[in-house]
């Protein structure tokens, strides 16, 4: 993170934005996030602190689904959209993290071809890049291949839920807030999706 902060400072010195401190590893509690968004209404520069705290996680989620090429753009765009809509952020409806991931998910949905290309590319790579050698290598590669293929067979709604949990590490409540769906629906979609993924893994894995 040190190199990253350094670059951030370099950029903000050259550009318009500036924040003291830069990103921090030990992020303060969530209430601080909401306070930052609120403060950015009168002092827009404060929003860069929201970026610093959440960009890496949002990027990992978006790049996991769309691949690094498209993610460079979409992850950055997520924060532009969030910045423009910051007045509509309502702490009563959930925390900042799920709000950002909800925006990211909407943008991801506009790139469904990139997403399926991504999983196909991963499937092609699976065998080649699996860890280890010999039989273990082949077995691990096979599992990864099955998993990547199974992802393409999930519905978009199932993928949204399962990847917000697996990649973004959101709680059930967080996923419900991000997608604007009931808490119970998160549980049922997640278990359906996991059942499908396990079935795909078990078919050849045993």
């Amino acid at each position, binding site marked *: 993170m040190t*190199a*990253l902060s350094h*670059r*951030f400072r*370099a*950029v*903000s010195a*050259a*550009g*318009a*934005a500036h924040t003291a401190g830069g990103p921090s590893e030990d992020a303060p509690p969530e209430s601080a996030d909401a306070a930052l968004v609120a403060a950015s209404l009168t002092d*827009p*520069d404060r*929003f*860069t602190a929201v*970026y610093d705290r959440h*960009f*890496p996680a949002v*990027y*990992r989620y978006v*790049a*996991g*689904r769309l*691949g*690094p*090429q*498209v*993610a*460079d*753009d979409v*992850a*950055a765009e997520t*924060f*532009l959209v969030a*910045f*423009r809509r910051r007045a509509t952020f309502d702490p009563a409806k959930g925390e900042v993290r799920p709000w950002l991931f909800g925006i990211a998910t909407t943008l991801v*949905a*506009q*790139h469904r*071809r990139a997403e399926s290309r991504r999983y196909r*590319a*991963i499937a*092609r*790579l*699976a065998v*080649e890049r699996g860890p280890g050698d010999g039989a273990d290598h082949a077995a691990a590669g096979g*599992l*990864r291949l099955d*998993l*990547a293929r199974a*992802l393409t067979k999930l519905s978009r709604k199932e993928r949204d839920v*399962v*990847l917000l*949990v*697996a*990649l973004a590490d959101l709680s059930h409540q967080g996923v419900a807030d991000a997608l604007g769906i009931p808490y119970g629906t998160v549980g049922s979609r997640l278990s359906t999706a*996991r059942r499908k*993924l*396990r079935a795909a*893994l078990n078919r050849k894995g045993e």
Partner: protein
Amino acid sequence: MDELRMLADLLEENPSDRTAAEGRARLGQEIAAPARPERRRLRWPVFAGFGLAATAAAVTGTLVLSSGTTPRAPDPGPAAAPMTARTVLLAAAEKAEAAPATGRYWHTKSVDKAFQRVGPKNNPYWIEETQVSETWTERNGQQSLGFRSAGVRPATPADTAAWRRDGSPQRWPAESIETGWGGPKHLTIKPQPGLLVRRKETPRFGVCDKEMTFAQVAALPDEPTALRAALHKAMLNGDDGPVPPGSQQSFLTSCTAHLLFQQPVRPRTRAAAYRLLATMPGVKVLGRTVDQMKRPGIALVIDEGRTGQDTRFVIDTKTSSILQIGPASPSKPKIELTKRMGQVGTQISLEVGWTDAKPRIPTLP
């Protein structure tokens, strides 16, 4: 094993310093100059309909993304004779209509540059790879693809100096995960032997951000009003979601110009596209120029107003081919990168048209 953990491992990607810094710079720009109306521009169809080259581009971590970057190609000189966009476009329509449409393959040959940041942490620098790609599409939709690297070099004199300090390395690992198609795993100073592959999937051609089959593109209307309606429909059904009403006109203008670049439309449809473009607002002639490959032509620009990014293209008046097309000026956040890297974002066409010549590994320009 827990399938959620496996998924996280399988899909893991981390942002590079450059990505994080670029995103932060974009946010900084937004904060400094907010409140633009929502709009969308045509995706630069970089490597459009060319899956292999798209992955080949990924190999070298090209910075050409949907928002595009830049060219500041040679400034067009003052027009030698009075000309208007309308006269230039209508003359091109005549040429387009008369173009031959016989031959077994619709053939395109393009040159692109891809950039990658390399070197040790205390001495990083940019290298650029010149890539030549070709497509041969048959009327039944089958396609062969050729790809060849013309070699890598440091991007600017400053990068050359840094490269020398780095011990003048001759090869670097390619950056992206998307190398699964079996392309080069390394970037090298020396040109590569190249490859020729038969494509397994059916090729798609991006028209107004809507993917079409070869047959669909070939069936586009050959009368300007009907063509406009077909493009409008494609736009409304685009693969990236709806285009905001405020930017539909400029989007349509821009995608009409892109239809003229390397797309396998019939000669009469190309002529209709030129005539349609002649009726659209915001298309201006810049004058005679040479393109990035030093070929003469006439430069035009699609003015998208203060908030959009203009599209600049160069017409070869002898053939009506579009020699190059790309963003007319860099979007603000990318200016720094642009300065370093010059020509990113512009597509350059070396050859285009129907031919009987069989697919082969690309020759270097």
